[in-house]
């Protein structure tokens, strides 16, 4: 097991989820676009985490990510710059924000009066557009971080 290889594997899965989300959005399949957008965000966060430690089996790894950012802010900020650190914190926030949509996009939800709604009746184009936007920037952040980590590691060899 090599940590930078693990990160690359996660990143490949994140990229695949992003491609799938784009395809489903273009096909106007809103629940599918939201589901795969969420998975892209999740895998993007886990790609960053995988540089440091094992990601948990959880659709919301934001707490882990924030923990790592907090523990390593002194080392990382001079290397990555404030803008990248801001992007990483945003990744954590958006990972948390989109996590609950995994269940909604898969199983639907219910109204306060108990009426059951299918995902396809609940999720709109606006929801899918939002999820896709989160996925695009989450993947970009993770890609940039993992690439920076890789380069720093090669520089040490």
């Amino acid at each position, binding site marked *: 097991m090599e940590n930078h290889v693990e990160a690359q594997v996660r990143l490949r899965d994140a990229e695949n989820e992003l491609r799938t989300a784009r395809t489903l959005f273009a096909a106007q399949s809103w629940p599918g676009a939201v589901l795969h957008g969420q998975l892209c965000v999740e895998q993007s966060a886990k790609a960053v985490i995988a540089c440091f430690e094992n990601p948990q089996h959880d659709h919301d790894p934001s*707490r882990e990510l924030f923990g790592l950012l907090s523990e390593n802010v002194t080392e990382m900020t001079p290397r990555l710059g404030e803008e990248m650190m801001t992007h990483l914190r945003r990744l954590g926030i958006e990972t948390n924000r989109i996590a609950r949509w995994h269940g909604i996009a898969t199983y639907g939800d219910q109204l306060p009066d108990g009426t059951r709604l299918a995902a396809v009746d609940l999720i709109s184009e606006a929801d899918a557009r939002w999820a896709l936007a989160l996925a695009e920037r989450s993947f970009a952040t993770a890609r940039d971080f993992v690439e920076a980590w890789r380069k720093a590691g090669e520089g040490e060899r």
Partner: protein
Amino acid sequence: MEARISPAKAKRQREECTLEKVRADILALGPALEKAEAVGIIGSLLREDFNEHSDIDLLIVMDDETFGQRRGVDWVGYWYDLFYPALAHFQRDVNCIVYSMGGLKKVNNWYVLVVASDAVLVHDKGRVAPLFQRIIDAAHRAGLVKRKRGVHTVWGLAPPVKFGQRVKVEVEDDGEPC
């Protein structure tokens, strides 16, 4: 007229699921476990966050020759078909994670470290527990540390982390067949 029990009440009446009870149910399968090199319990049943919504997570390790007879996904189905009925009285889903001995030896992902350090083996032909120890030793040699994030075990880089730090966890080949 038959009295109807609400789903909530049925849930409350569900049999308590404990590590020891699951262990007993697995061992009661006897010869059916023969295809496994080892069977263990992992996940939340071993932790304090096990709750009414939690699944039962099982680890199955197989020797490479037997594992190679089917696709990995087919082995997951095989073991699920064996374990789910045996554990059905707990009214929980059962997750089967299947590894080959060779896959464990390769330490092919971070999670292998968590499995090696945390799994409770309930059936072991004798090779898996020592392999788990070798994996843990390899992780320590690589400079990794085990700690807790909340209730979860985490294996990771020892602080202070150097940005870009690379680690490689390798189990030495003992020449034994997998």
